[in-house]
Each structure stands twice: as structure tokens, then as C-alpha cells.
């Protein structure tokens, strides 16, 4: 018989004991070790995952922050640039304005100076001209000239119109003072008598005549009494001439000013172009 039942039973028992022993000493410890290791690995992986996700989160956060920061910086930069541009434009404008003002004031002062100079020049010239004329006439004035002057004066007296004549007559007659005749030079006696005669003729009555010599009268003769005065002198001519010269000068200055005022915008435009 190939089967020995005692051995079979013994082997069954042996096998069961072996099962128990191996469970106790082999499978249990080995599986526990594997489980522990796997748990450790899983823990490590989970830890790494957690760290990774945390890092990812932080990276995202930082990226977001960076983005915001960049945007803010850009905005600030733009703002600063804008402000700088505005400031630049403003400063330029101000500088241009100041330059313009300075230029205008400079031009104005230059023009004023020029005008002053012109005026001064013309005044000097006029004065010189008149002084020369006055001096020449004074130098030239002599007896013959005085004679001729007296003639013209007397002629003027005779040629007075009726109203003037009446006024003069009444003035001369009513005045208690003697008639005052002033001349620049001492006249010859014939002249004096001729004047006295003519006055008598005009007034139709005797009137005491007093002769005075006043060198300021440039080659002239003057009768005055009771506020009335009849005179003729070269100084009058000279005065009227000076007046006309002055008015002419004033006129020319005005025209010059107007011309410059018209020219001014053009030059300003040109200067602004150069400035830009």
C-alpha cells in the first residue's frame, strides 16, 4: 500500500504547523515590512505632492504679484512720463514766453532808446539850427536891417484891419502910460521920428513914445501899451518854424511806431518757429 495513513495524518499536522509557523515568521513580518515601507513611500510621495502643490501655489502667487507689480510699475512709469511731458511742455512754454517777453521788452527798450536818441538828436539839431540861425541873424542884424525892419513894422501897422485898428487905438489912447517901443538895437534918429510920426498918424493925436533897447528881440520891434502889443521880429518866424518842425517830427515818430507795430507779429512768428 502506497498510502500510510499514520504518515498522512502526521503530514497533515506537520503541514498545518508549518502553515502557522510560516505565517508567524515569514509572511507576517515580510508583509508588515513591505506595508511599512509602502506607507513610508506613500507618505513621502504625499509630502512631496503637498510640497509641490504648495510650491506651485506660491509660485502662482508670486507670479500674480509680479504681474501686478509690473503693471503698477508700468502705470507709474506712464504717469511719470506723462507728467514729465506735461512739465516739459509747460517749462518750454514758460521759457518761450519769458524769452518772448524779454525780447519784446528788449525791443521796446531798444526802440525807446532809439526814439529817445532820435528825439534827442532832432532836438539838438533843431536847437543847433535855431541857435545858428539866431546867431547868424543877430550877427547880420545891423542898422540897415533895422531900418528895413522898421519900415516893415510900420507898414504892418498901417495895414491892420479896422477891428484891430479900433481895438489898438482905444487901448493906446485910454492908457495913461506912454507908448513903449522896444527894439533890439539902437535905431537911427530918423527911424525913431518915422515911428513917432506913423503912430501919430494912426492914432490921430499926440502920444508920448518911449524907446527901449532889448537885445533878446532878434531883429525885431514891438509896441506895447495897456496889455496891447504889436510886434514883429525874426524870433517869431523862428518860433513858428520850430513848432512846425516839432509837429513834423512827432508825426514821423507816430508813423514809425505804427509800422513797427505792424511788423512785430511777423517777427514773433518767426522767432517761435525757431524756438520749436
Amino acid at each position, binding site marked *: 500500500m502506497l498510502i500510510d495513513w*499514520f504518515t498522512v*495524518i502526521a503530514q*497533515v499536522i506537520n*503541514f498545518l504547523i508549518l502553515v*502557522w*509557523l510560516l505565517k508567524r515568521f515569514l509572511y507576517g513580518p515580510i*508583509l508588515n*515590512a513591505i506595508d511599512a*515601507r509602502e506607507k*513610508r513611500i506613500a507618505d513621502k510621495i504625499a509630502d512631496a505632492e503637498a510640497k509641490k502643490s504648495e510650491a506651485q501655489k506660491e509660485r502662482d502667487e508670486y507670479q500674480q504679484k509680479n504681474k501686478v507689480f509690473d503693471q503698477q510699475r508700468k502705470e507709474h512709469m506712464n504717469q511719470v512720463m506723462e507728467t514729465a511731458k506735461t512739465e516739459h511742455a509747460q517749462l518750454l512754454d514758460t521759457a518761450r514766453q519769458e524769452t518772448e517777453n524779454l525780447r519784446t521788452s528788449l525791443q521796446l527798450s531798444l526802440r525807446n532808446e532809439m526814439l529817445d536818441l532820435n528825439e534827442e538828436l532832432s532836438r539838438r539839431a533843431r536847437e543847433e539850427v535855431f541857435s545858428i540861425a539866431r546867431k547868424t541873424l543877430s550877427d547880420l542884424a545891423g542898422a540897415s536891417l533895422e531900418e528895413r525892419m522898421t519900415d516893415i513894422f510900420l507898414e504892418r501897422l498901417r495895414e491892420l484891419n479896422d477891428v484891430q485898428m479900433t481895438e489898438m487905438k482905444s487901448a493906446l489912447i485910454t492908457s495913461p502910460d506912454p507908448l513903449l517901443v522896444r527894439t533890439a538895437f539902437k535905431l537911427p534918429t530918423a527911424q525913431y521920428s518915422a515911428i513917432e510920426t506913423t503912430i501919430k498918424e494912426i492914432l490921430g493925436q499926440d502920444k508920448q513914445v518911449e524907446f527901449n533897447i532889448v537885445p533878446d528881440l532878434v531883429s525885431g520891434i514891438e509896441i506895447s501899451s495897456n496889455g496891447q502889443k504889436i510886434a514883429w521880429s525874426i524870433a517869431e518866424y523862428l518860433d513858428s518854424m520850430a513848432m512846425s518842425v516839432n509837429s513834423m517830427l512827432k508825426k514821423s515818430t507816430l508813423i514809425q511806431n505804427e509800422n513797427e507795430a505792424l511788423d512785430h507779429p511777423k517777427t514773433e512768428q518767426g522767432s517761435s518757429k525757431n524756438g520749436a
Partner: protein
Amino acid sequence: MNLSPDNIIFWQAGIFKLNATIVYTWGLMLVLVLGSKLITRKLSTDLERSRWQNLLEIIVTGINQQIEEVGLKNPRKYLGFLGTLFLFVAMASLFTIVPGYEPPTGSLSTTAALAICVLVAVPMFGIEEAGFGRYLRAYTQPTIIMLPFNIISEISRTLALAVRLFGNMMSGTLIIAILLTITPFIFPIIMSVLGLLTGMVQAYIFSILATVYIAAATRARKPEPEPKLEEKTTPDNNKRINHG
């Protein structure tokens, strides 16, 4: 010439006897247990571990994986029984390289004992998993007529299990013994190598068949597989496969 190590009796008292089968079985048990104890004495749970621990881990996880691949949902529960079956049979044939050793699996008593263990374990696990009534009812599936056939199938497959292992192991040792008398050099060594291979294959076949029977008893008689359990175990298994 002995056909079975049962016939080599060292000591006997009545029906109690100490034959080679039992003695060598004890020897194997001692080697297995002591080896396990020595190696598992200082197990490392770190990534660094000794080569012996690696070997044991490979064996254990390999068996575990095989059980799972056959279709058992909770392989650790069956690992003790099926793993020991495999290890015992494998070690029994592996030790044939030791001169004077007779594999205990070359005795029909041992293979019968193992087959009986399987015969008992299959309904045990089946009943534990499916319940007594439902397990017994499975014998009448698909009809009541199938009941005797199912019972015959249960017994005959157990018998086949025992005889298959016995025949293979016995033939291996027998061939070597015969060849030793004819050609004492080289050729027996080749046959011994072949015997080792056969032994390993038999160990695999024996334990895988037992696994299949248990799987059939536990799974096939269940009305519906539990999907939750599957989902729960699948990633775990994958991890273990990768790890191994």
C-alpha cells in the same frame, strides 16, 4: 529499492513510526522556519535592505500576486495556506540536490495529506466567504442532477492533485535512481536538473490548482462581485507590482 520514503522507517512503536517522510518534512520545516526567522529578525522598512530580505519579499509578493491574478480578492488571507503549499513542495524538490535526501513529496502519503488539506480548505474558505447554505447550494447548480457529478468532481480533482504530485516527484527520484545504476556519471546530473525543474513546475501547478479551486469556491458562488472591493485593491496591487 523503495518506491516511497515512507518505507524508510527510523523508529516505530505500534502504529507510531518515524519514517523518512516525516523526518525530512521536519527537516524542511526546520530549514524554512529557521531561515525565515533568521532573515526576518532584522527586517528593514527603509529603501535599503539585505539581499535575503529582498529574496523573501520577492517570493512572498510573487505568491501574493499569483493568488491575486487567479482571481482571489483578498490574497493575504490565503497567502498562509497557498504560499506554504508552494514553498513546501518547492523546497522539497529543491533539496533533491542534497545527496541522500528523499523528497517527502515523493510519498503518496504526503501528497495525499496536502490534497486532503486542499479538500478541506476549499469548502472552508467557500463557506467563510459565501455562507454555509449558499455554498452547499452551489453543488446543485445549475440543476439538482449535477449534485453527484459535482461531488465526484470535487473528490476526483483532489485525488488527481495528490497523484499528480506524487507521480512526478516519485518518477523523478526513481529515474535518477535507475539512471545511477546504468550511467553513474553526468547523465543523472542532467536528470537531476530536469527533476528540479519538474519539481518547481509541480509546486507551481499544485499551489495554483489549489488557488483556482479556492477561487472557484469563493468567487463563482457569489451572486455579484463587489465592485468597491475591487476598486480598493486594484491601485494597491499595481503599487505592489511596481514596487516588486
